[in-house]
């Protein structure tokens, strides 16, 4: 658990982060959203002491980080940034091995870990271990960046716009991978993004920041249904609200009994995708298929009601 309590960071008296209090539950993803200059990056960089707070405290699992040596703290926390910061003079394997090496793991253990991570991220170790970062595509570099951040098995992973430089298709894949990895390791992830769509897709909690202040920290449903300020509503986009709401749930959770005609919809699609499919094919309902079997149907009517503002 990360407890940020009344934290302020000021440069020359100008607060960049202004009395922010935020608790991040263990094993969840917290997306910190805001425009540039909102203080979201500064807030996250205070968690691994890359920025020293002017006042306030941050506790990790109950322990105040102010008393911990910065380098020790950082070795326990994964860190992945936009532009990745891969070391261009080191191979992929050496890059991933950075923190384990700092922690003094023995050689065999490091090698095994590098291999494991490369496989986990779908990069064949034999092919990629000895490549230089600039010989990789943007998507591959991104995966190496995250693999490096996870190398020592940290409980916490801080990510600053980790997908910012990727094109939309690769970005979607990378986000999916991140979710899978988070589920697998139960890592607590704090992710900085300016993209509300990304925040809604990834975040268990969304923390919206503006001008150094935390405007709202809540689940995506709550943020969409009841934005705390006009700025939050603006970030979500009023025209997008019903669709964003639909994107949060899966077809599997809203299957109705009954039959429908036409091509079935997969149960693990989001409601938004199902809605789009129904509209596009001009049907009022479609059969739902789970693991190759039709298990019920999903209707435009039902989806329409789910997309309405929750009471």
């Amino acid at each position: 658990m990360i407890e940020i309590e009344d934290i302020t960071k000021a440069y020359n008296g100008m607060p960049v982060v202004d009395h922010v209090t935020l608790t991040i539950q263990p094993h969840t993803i917290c997306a910190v959203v805001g425009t540039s200059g909102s203080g979201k990056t500064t807030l996250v960089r205070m968690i691994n002491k890359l920025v020293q707070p002017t006042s306030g405290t941050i506790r990790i699992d109950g322990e105040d980080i102010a008393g911990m040596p910065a380098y020790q703290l950082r070795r326990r926390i994964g860190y992945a940034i936009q532009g990745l910061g891969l070391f261009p003079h080191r191979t992929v394997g050496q890059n991933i091995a950075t923190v384990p090496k700092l922690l003094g793991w023995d050689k065999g253990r490091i090698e095994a870990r590098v291999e494991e991570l490369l496989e986990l991220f779908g990069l064949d170790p034999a092919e990629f271990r000895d490549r230089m970062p600039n010989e990789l595509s943007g998507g591959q570099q991104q995966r190496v960046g995250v693999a490096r951040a996870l190398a020592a098995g940290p409980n916490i992973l801080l990510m600053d716009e980790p997908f910012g430089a990727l094109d939309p298709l690769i970005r979607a894949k990378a986000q999916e991978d991140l979710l899978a990895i988070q589920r697998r390791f139960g890592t607590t992830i704090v992710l900085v993004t300016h993209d509300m769509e990304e925040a809604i897709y990834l975040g268990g909690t969304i923390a919206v920041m503006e001008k150094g202040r935390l405007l709202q920290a809540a689940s995506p449903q709550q943020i969409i249904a009841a934005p705390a300020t006009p700025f939050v509503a603006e970030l979500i986009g009023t025209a997008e609200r019903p669709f964003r709401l639909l994107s949060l749930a899966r077809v599997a959770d809203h299957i109705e009994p009954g039959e429908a005609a036409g091509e079935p919809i997969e149960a693990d699609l989001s409601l938004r995708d199902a809605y789009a499919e129904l509209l596009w094919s001009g049907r009022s309902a479609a059969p739902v298929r789970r693991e190759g079997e039709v298990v019920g149907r999903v209707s435009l009517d039902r989806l329409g009601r789910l997309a309405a503002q929750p009471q």
Partner: protein
Amino acid sequence: MSVTDAADAGDRSALPMLDKLGVLIGLVATVGAVLPFALFRANRIVPGEGRHLLEALPSVPAWVLTGTLLTGVIVAVLRLPPLIKLAAGILVLAALAILIGRVASYLTPADDTFARISPGAGFWLLVLAFAMLIADALIRMQLGPWLRIALLAVAGMAVAVLLWGGAWRDLSILKEYATRAPAFWQEARAHLVLAFGSVAMAILVGVPVGVLCHKVRPLRASVLNVLNIVQTIPSIALFGLLIAPLAWVAANVPGASAIGISGIGTAPAMVALFAYSLLPLVSNTVVGLQGVPASAIDAARGMGMSSPQRLLGVELPLAYPVILTGIRIVLVQNIGLATIAALIGGGGFGVFVFQGIGQTAMDLVLLGAVPTVALSFAAAVILDAMVETSSRGRRRRR
């Protein structure tokens, strides 16, 4: 090679079949062939009389050389693949190198130990022309760094074979060498110690100072300014200026003279060369460190690298190609500058240059100048190759 092909195709309309640089090379070579090929002097200090190519050699080798030169010029002027141009250039240079030795033996009257035969303006122009041809071909072939070093080694060995095989024995410059061989090697050692020693000292001091300037921002401007001023002091003046303070140190600091510090000699020469080396090294270190991607440094910090770990593990390795470029500049510069050390008794190849000027014996000047040039050239080729290998992994982008 496809790039050059495309470029060739672009201006083909203007001058069909002709290579622009090749035409220039051909012109230089033609002038070279007309000017005196060798100089004959009755003794080492009288002015020489020119000997034309055809009078400098017996008829068969003279015509062989003429034919070779003609072939070389034709190959240079036409648009041909660089490999053919390279081969032609090497062939001509080899012929020139071997035959200039023949010229010396042929023109020296029997049993005359005073006569001096030296290469004439024509010879040097021909060498220049075909060296240009080779250099151009090598650039177009885009040889890798290791291949370039290998070529340098082969060229060095070829010269060694000509030298020790006795092919150039009768050339004036080697006659000068023959009478002072022990001194030559002693000065060669002094020269190397001055050039490499001063660069080594400058690396040991300059890189840490560069790191310090990078870390402590206010220091940067002042340090670089001071070094800039040092760099502008004329070299001879700097050598001279150091005589007084070092003489004082030698006289007043106990033990200073015992380790070789004195007003004249190696110490002031070393100090001056060291001072000249500092600016390029410090500024290249600063520039190199500034060029390290901010994201790499941020990631290094974020992953818990301590400040020294960051410096040694990330910043210096990434700045290394730029620092190495600084070392290359300084080494080539100091190999040349070290000749001036002879003026204040510091030794080195400059000894022969200044003796030669004093005696108006140009052959003696060459005995000092030619090895200096060869040394600089070799150092430049080797360090360029090192710079390229060191930055290679990072330059291939996507």
